[in-house]
């Protein structure tokens, strides 16, 4: 029996089910090429805004031990114009451009910037837990979500994913608004709002104070959200959060994800091995369980 690692996330076909999460090594097309060559089925870029952003002063990304990370980078990114220039020559890597902003027009104007770039899709970051006025603020307002998704969809000629996270309001309302507005898929979840205090310095470890928790600690929270979305909506999901091994990836698929994003996992091992190791593990598991396609496994643990 031949099993295939191909994954289908709604309109998006991926040769392999593992995808680089947004904000992780996410601004250099050379790195994208390297990771794609090393097994990533697609690459989600750092979230791009209309204008460049320097982000916050350090510390912005701090490991917490136990495979956890906290970050508040302040959405540093080169801006849509510069980033479009950087990826213009790409022909081989399936790049999903992550977009962030606070008004629908920003999204449509950014999509226009990427006109002519060879990209595989967009991911709308509705859920960055530590930057005022963008991210979660948007995700917390279903009406705005709806307008942002609609603006992006109407400008874009490639699939559009909406990325959700645990915010102040019910993230399932955000999912619902995004679907109604035409999103082709949902990415779940972003980091979880957290605060790590250094007891010797008696202040937060991040310059921004509050940041987003990622990595192993949020794995079962991500499984929960993916399962909830999968059972309540008919929409393809890219699962994200706490995947560090192939077992975690399989668990997210069994919970309802059609593909799996890896973020903090890149900090645990060699960028040249992480995707391949997870892919190989998934393939061996499928072989052992007699599963022929990733699709067959999606949501199977909820049956």
């Amino acid at each position: 029996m031949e099993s295939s690692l191909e994954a289908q996330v709604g309109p998006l076909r991926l040769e392999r089910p593992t995808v680089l999460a947004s904000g992780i090594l996410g601004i250099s097309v050379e790195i994208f090429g390297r990771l794609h060559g090393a097994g990533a089925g697609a690459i989600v870029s750092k979230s791009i805004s209309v204008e460049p952003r320097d982000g916050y002063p350090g510390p912005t990304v701090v490991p917490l031990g136990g495979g956890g990370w906290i970050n508040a980078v302040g959405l540093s990114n080169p801006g849509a114009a510069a980033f479009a220039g950087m990826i213009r020559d790409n022909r081989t890597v399936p790049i999903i451009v992550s977009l962030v902003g606070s008004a629908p027009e920003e999204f449509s104007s950014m999509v226009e910037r990427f006109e002519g770039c060879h990209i595989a899709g967009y991911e709308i970051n509705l859920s960055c837990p530590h930057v005022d006025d963008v991210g979660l603020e948007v995700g917390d307002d279903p009406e705005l979500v709806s307008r942002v998704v609609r603006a992006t969809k109407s400008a874009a000629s490639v699939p559009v994913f909406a990325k959700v996270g645990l915010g102040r309001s019910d993230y399932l309302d955000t999912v619902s608004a995004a679907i109604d507005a035409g999103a082709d898929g949902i990415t779940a979840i972003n980091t979880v709002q957290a605060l790590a205090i250094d007891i010797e310095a008696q202040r937060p470890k991040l310059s921004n104070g509050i940041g987003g928790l990622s990595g192993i600690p949020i794995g079962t929270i991500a499984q929960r959200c993916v399962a909830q979305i999968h059972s309540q909506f008919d929409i393809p999901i890219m699962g994200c959060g706490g995947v560090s091994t192939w077992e975690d990836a399989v668990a997210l698929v069994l919970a309802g994800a059609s593909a799996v994003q890896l973020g903090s996992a890149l900090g645990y091992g060699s960028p040249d091995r992480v995707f391949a190791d997870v892919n190989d593990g998934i393939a061996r598991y499928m072989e052992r369980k007699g599963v022929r396609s990733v699709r067959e496994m999606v949501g199977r643990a909820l049956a």
Partner: protein
Amino acid sequence: MHETSHIVQVTSVRDETATVHTLEFDDSTMAAALPGQFAMVWVPGIGEIPMSVMVADGGRAAFTVRRHGEATTGLYNLGPGEMMGVRGPYGNSFDIRAGRLLLVGGGTGLVPLMRLISRAPPDADITLVMGARTRPEVFFADTARALLRPRPHCIVVCTDDGSYGRPGLATDAAADELSGGAFDAVYACGPEIMMYKVMRLAQDAGVFAQASVERIMKCGTGICGSCCMGRELVCGDGTVFEAGRLLANPDFGVRYRTKSGEVAYY
């Protein structure tokens, strides 16, 4: 899996120049850093920046910092008893060869080279080229002499303005050394243009060479991408790279990324 930062206390501060301080502290993790490895150093309330780990006596560790912008000034200003957070050490390290070694450093780029000297095999014959712009900016001369004393060595201090030692650029001195004798390895750390020239010189001379590269480093651990240089992640694949790999990199010596990730040119 990376552990989180921990707080250490500065035990003593040494003036190197009017703008350069060496801060010593007790910390076994940092004391064990390999030459070329760096730490992410947090000055609470001010910032966090990458710093090479400097040598220090008796199981202690140190950083040598040049006062520059906000974060380095904050670090520079720390006094004995004050706290800083450290995490790491991160990155790879110099592949220290035996035989005749040429070390070329400028400014705080000398920090990893000092550590390299302290870890070199006892019979390695070390030529150290130290570059500075002017006489008052020369530092580590005594430290280098003390570290090199027990072994065959040669120290060449150059100043751009000729106010001390050999007049001219460190790269000129390095070129002379390379043409004058057969070296087994060349190690460089300092301004990127300088390192670029040294790597070319070494490659032309057919000598094994490595340089330690600096970039914006936000995480130090291979996840944020701020340190990318072409296909390389400087924090994890480096900071130390071999000459061939560096010279093949489209960015090395040419361009870098700013804090936003935009491309800027040297």
